[in-house]
């Protein structure tokens, strides 16, 4: 006990002495707190530091939080009145907070801003910060998924170009599938977490469905295609329990000829993959059919409880003004169409990037809906039930649609 009180006392002393020794300005200094999952190699921490240094009147306190803890920590903090001023939150969870009034409506601030112009953002990310026609945040970065393919294995199987339709994807995967050499035709993730939804929803959307119409005929067909791929073992049965990162690992090691994943894999793939590879847009239901893709990554938001909304918004403006550094310095894609990405000089990476940027045009936000975790769970359950043969794709998606309708109150 004494030790603890001693410590507290020492800290208190140190703080007071710091305060008195510090510049007189310290009295007017405003402190804003920023929570994000970025570490020293990622943008938020670095940008927060720079903002702190260049704004004499604003002191920035930065806290790094783990991916899994973002929502629960933020909820707890908001519920007990200790929320930070600014938080970076995963885009499907944005509406959860916005709809409950936990995030500050910054529509007017953005309208008056010289730095942030909604017209510059991709529609998907912008949609994810929008609730009820108002803007509750600014997209921090974005990502999407596309089809990586092993060009060496393509050549060996006599395939000249990547599949354009779902049927072609199955066809090509059959040709590439080579159990004798431990090569699967395709790798992807149907895991029962947000990753499964992230991977399946684009397919449902390409088939004319969506989270609010998950049993559309095209979505059912998409799940039937997935089931065919798993039933014929064109993809590892572990697809059901493996995330995207591990699935892509099997592609990098040459045990899968194609993989559906995102640009976050690029650096690792350059290092690990000992073969020639390329990236193609996700195959569509029919040739030239509707395109869609998943949209990932985080958004910035200001908590409604902040005491310093203007300073917090100023920080967001600074972050947005540095969006052109996201890719060259941190390997992340800005959520904006007006930021040109410089060539990296690595041919594979630059070619891949072009495809991802094109795919981003079609990326759609998950939701936005305040009950997204429950909606997502219904979709995951349907995927898993269909792929494990507990229900037909039609029945599983009908059940999911009924659950989701209940959540949406229809």
């Amino acid at each position: 006990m004494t030790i603890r009180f001693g410590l507290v006392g020492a800290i208190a002393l140190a703080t007071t002495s710091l305060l008195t020794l510090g510049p007189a300005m310290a009295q007017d200094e405003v402190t804003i707190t920023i929570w994000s999952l970025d570490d020293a190699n990622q943008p938020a921490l670095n940008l927060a530091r720079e903002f702190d240094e260049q704004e004499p009147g604003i002191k920035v306190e930065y806290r790094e939080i783990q991916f899994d803890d973002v929502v629960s920590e933020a909820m707890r903090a908001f519920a007990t009145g200790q929320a930070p001023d600014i938080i970076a939150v995963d885009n499907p969870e944005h509406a959860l907070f916005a709809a409950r009034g936990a995030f500050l409506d910054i529509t007017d601030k953005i309208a008056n801003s010289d730095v942030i112009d909604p017209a510059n953002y991709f529609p998907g990310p912008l949609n994810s910060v929008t609730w009820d026609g108002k803007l509750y945040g600014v997209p921090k970065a974005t990502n999407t998924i596309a089809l990586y393919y092993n060009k060496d294995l393509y050549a060996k199987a006599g395939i000249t170009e990547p599949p354009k339709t779902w049927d072609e994807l199955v066809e090509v995967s059959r040709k590439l599938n080579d159990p004798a050499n431990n090569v699967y035709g395709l790798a992807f993730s149907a895991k029962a977490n947000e990753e499964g939804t992230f991977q399946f929803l684009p397919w449902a959307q390409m088939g004319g469905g969506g989270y609010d119409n998950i049993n559309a005929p095209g979505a059912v067909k998409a799940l039937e295609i997935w089931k065919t791929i798993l039933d014929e073992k064109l993809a590892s049965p572990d697809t059901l329990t493996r995330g995207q990162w591990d699935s892509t690992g099997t592609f990098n090691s040459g045990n899968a000829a194609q993989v559906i994943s995102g640009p976050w894999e690029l650096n690792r793939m350059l290092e690990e993959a000992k073969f020639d590879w390329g990236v193609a847009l996700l195959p569509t239901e029919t040739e030239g059919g509707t395109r869609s893709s998943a949209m990932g990554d985080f958004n910035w938001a200001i908590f409604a409880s902040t005491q310093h909304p203007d300073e917090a918004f100023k920080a967001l403006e600074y972050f947005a003004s540095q969006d052109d550094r996201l890719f060259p310095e941190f390997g992340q894609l800005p959520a904006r169409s007006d930021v040109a990405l410089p060539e990296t000089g690595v041919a594979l990476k630059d070619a891949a990037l072009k495809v991802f940027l094109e795919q981003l045009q079609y990326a759609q936000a998950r939701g936005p809906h305040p009950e997204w975790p429950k909606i997502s769970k219904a979709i995951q359950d349907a995927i898993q039930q269909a792929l494990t043969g507990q229900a037909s794709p039609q029945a599983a998606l009908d059940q999911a649609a009924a659950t989701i309708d209940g959540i949406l109150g229809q």
Partner: protein
Amino acid sequence: MNRLLSSLRDGKGFDIVLVTVPLLFLIALSGLPLIYNVVMSFQEVDMFSLGTFARPWVGFKNYIAVFSAPETWPIMRNTAVFVVCSIAGQFLLGFGLALFFTQKFPGASYIRGLFLASWVMPGLVVGAIWNWILAGDFGVLNYVLKSIGIISENIFWRSDTNWSLWAVIIANIWLGTAFNMILLAVGLAGIPRDLYEAAELDGANGWQRFWTITLPMMRATIGAVISLGLIFTLQQFDLFAAITSGGPANSSNVAQYWAWEQSFRQYDFAKGSTISVVMIAVVMIASVIYVRSTRHEVRG
């Protein structure tokens, strides 16, 4: 004042202090959260009302919702299978090892100590290691089973609905065997040697000695080991998180993992607490059995 002090040092006051301290500790760290959990199961709770007590009271709505969910009974069945098979496996292997190591052979006690390595390891680490062993395409277990000709095709332990629960049970048996072994070995060491000598003089063979001396003398220990096993098994969360995440399609989901999923994945804290209240009831019964079985020991 003096009398109070001396009573505190050595007397009734001292006894009261001894009782109060752990009691306060228990109330603060176990009792209050437990009551809070029960209260939450009768309320409508979401993340924005987490910080307040004044939440809408919904009576048994959460319980009705839990028990009418289609996944409830499969999950309860999984929980029962997981608990029974894990305990049976841990206990039988642990007892076998304990009996084996009571034989006097060189290095017996050292090797027995080494077995504890599994119990010392964090569940997440154990889970990660078993993940590699049980991996479908390149797993060690599949390789071994194939090499000795038991299976001809890879078993996808984690992704096959027929096997996923067993994948976790196997890992859990490995994790808990050492703990069972140590507790049972202590029990075995407590049986007076002369009982065996007398029985031997009377002409009892090893089998008879085991059934008529070892087992009856171990009654209290076995009761305690199995009750503790039940509690530890119902607490087992890390292995599920690390190996199957309860999937695929809930085929390896159990009540404790489900409760966590409801609370921290769906943010439905009320439903999460409802499931844990049901589990508390089960653990309570186990605790009563445990307390009763150890009472014998104290008097004995």
